[in-house]
């Protein structure tokens, strides 16, 4: 498939993710949108890696492997971050019985 399709999809997913982070009030939904952004980048990396692989298939059958390797890194980071983030949300809920991000504006002071 043409590379542009993957790029458009990735951009779309990224923008949806941003829009969600900015507008949603439920912090769990915000986390999901963050995951969405990360995964859109993963998609883009894999797509480009395949593009380079196909372009240099004759010379080097292992070309473009860096992209896919980096995806693993991103996934690991995402997992770690999610665990920490969910822990914070659980603490938030224990204290305030709400997961509404607008409720926590203590940084104002």
């Amino acid at each position: 498939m043409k590379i542009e399709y993957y790029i458009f999809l990735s951009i779309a997913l990224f923008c949806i993710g941003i829009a969600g982070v900015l507008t949603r009030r439920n912090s769990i939904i915000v986390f999901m949108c963050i995951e969405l952004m990360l995964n859109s980048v993963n998609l883009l990396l894999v797509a480009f890696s395949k593009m380079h692989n196909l372009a240099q298939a004759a010379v080097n059958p292992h070309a473009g492997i860096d992209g896919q390797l980096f995806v693993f890194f991103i996934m690991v980071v995402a997992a770690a971050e999610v665990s920490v983030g969910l822990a914070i949300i659980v603490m938030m809920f224990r204290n305030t019985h709400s997961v509404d991000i607008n409720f926590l504006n203590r940084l104002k002071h």
Partner: protein
Amino acid sequence: MNKLVILIPLMPLAGFLINGLFRKSLPKVVSGIIGSGAILISFILSIIVFTEINKGNNQVVSLFEFIKVGKFSIPFSFLVDPLSSIFLLIITGVGFLIHLYSTAYMHEENNAHFARYFAFLNLFVFSMLVLVMGGNFVIMFIGWEGVGLCSYLLIGYWFKNIEYGNAAKKAFIMNRIGDLGFLIGIFWLIAKLGTVTYHTPENTGVFDLFSKLSKADITAITLLLFIGATGKSAQIPLYTWLPDAMAGPTPVSALIHAATMVTAGIYMIARSNILYTLAPFTQTIIAIVGLATALLAATIAIKQNDIKKVLAYSTVSQLGYMFIALGVGSYTGAVFHVMTHAFFKALLFLGAGSVIHAMHHEQDIRNMGGLKKKLPVTHITFLAGCIAIAGIPPFSGFFSKDEILAAAWAVNPVYWILGVIGAMMTAYYMFRLYATTFLGKFRGTSEQQQHLHESPVAMTIPLVVLAILSVIGGLIGIPAIFMEGGHKLEHFLAPVFAESTKLQHAHQIEHSTEYMLMAVSSGLALVAIIFAITRFSKKPELNEPGGAGKVLANKWYVDEIYDAVIVKPLNGLGKFLNNVMERSVIDGAVNGVGKFLQYGSRQIRLVQSGQVGSYVLLMVLGILVFFVLQFFIKK
């Protein structure tokens, strides 16, 4: 000799400090002795210095470097030459007599105020001595300002009276206006010549280098210096402070406003005579202003009823004569008239003080009359002063006034005619004053009549001394037509005016013309005297003046005109600047900056909402801007 010269101003300064600092603890006798003694010592020293100068040794004493900027230096130096030694004698001599008089006149004051009076008088004499002894224009200006200050302090001596305080302020402010012209003149001199010293042995003084100045420069500088003189010496337009200055004690009026401070302007012009000789335009202006002042003041004096106001306007008028002399180039005549005027005007003021003292602070001549029986010494001395000022030979006033009038005739006969008219008016109003006060019947209350008595010795001795001087003082200036080798004063002052005399075409008038001029002026003065005496001894002027007399009695409404034309607009400008500029504009701007900052910070504070969402939004926006700048805007 140098030490003696330095001691002359130092004695009054010491008197000022002692009387001023210890005024609460000195008894009146002691402070009187300190005050008068200091001036007496200065007088004796001035006589010694005078004999030295008479031999021809000018004294130059340089004390220290006052101002030094690069190559421009102003030393604090004294110059004693014939001109300043004459003034020294006048200031310390007449000053001593007035100090002596004051010990009796001011005896009603309490100790501290009495000492304060003598401290200020001594400070005044100190400043005046610095003025005449100064070796350059800046030292003269220090003395100039000092006498202005002391004039303010002494006019407002009875400070609890608001009116007197206003009079003192008026004097000082009008002086200051003139001083602006003086200062600009000095600055101009410095700019063009780089020096303010009168003479130096190396011929680098102002009066040596005057040829470097262009005609326009000299005219401008002399005009500016003359403006200073109009303020200090009460000429049109800055003369209105002098009649108001009569609010001060009478000896103060005698010393400051008759004999010394008001002559500072004449001294200054006489000192700068070479500059004035080179600026004929300025000389014409001086002569015209002097004539106008002489006539204007004389007309006002005719209708005044306060004994001191008549003498005040008389002073303004006589100062006008001195300026006429300067304007026609008769510098010796001006200095001569300064001297004789000091004698008879101080005498007249002190005599008026004696009358006021006897009448228990009454100053309106309409309530006096017939005082000659009870106040014999005062009466005789006052009469002598009146005859002197009227210019009747052989009293001193005749010689000095005649010299001025003769010089005026030589330049322009119209000046002479107007001068003689002024002299007639002088004789008329002075003898109106004399007749209304001393002749006729007593018109005061019976209580005042009980207490009429001659003044104490301390007051009558100065009167007698000054009367003798008024009678014989003119003999040093007998013109050449009367006595061969006469006019000793002119010979004495010749070195000071030598350059000017060389440049001026000597207006020699024939002897017969001079006799005729003398006869006409003396005769007209005599007619005025007889007219005044016969009219006023029988029927003194008791009614309110009407018509033209009213204008004269109200001083031609000059004060009112000044008030309407100058004072009110300035006050209005001040109010406008205060309410509009100060409050709305400047305060508005300064407060506005503060208010704007507060508003701005209030708005910016809203960003800190504590909402995580808005923080993330800002992050996203920042990244967006970054991308746009990097990739889409080509450098």
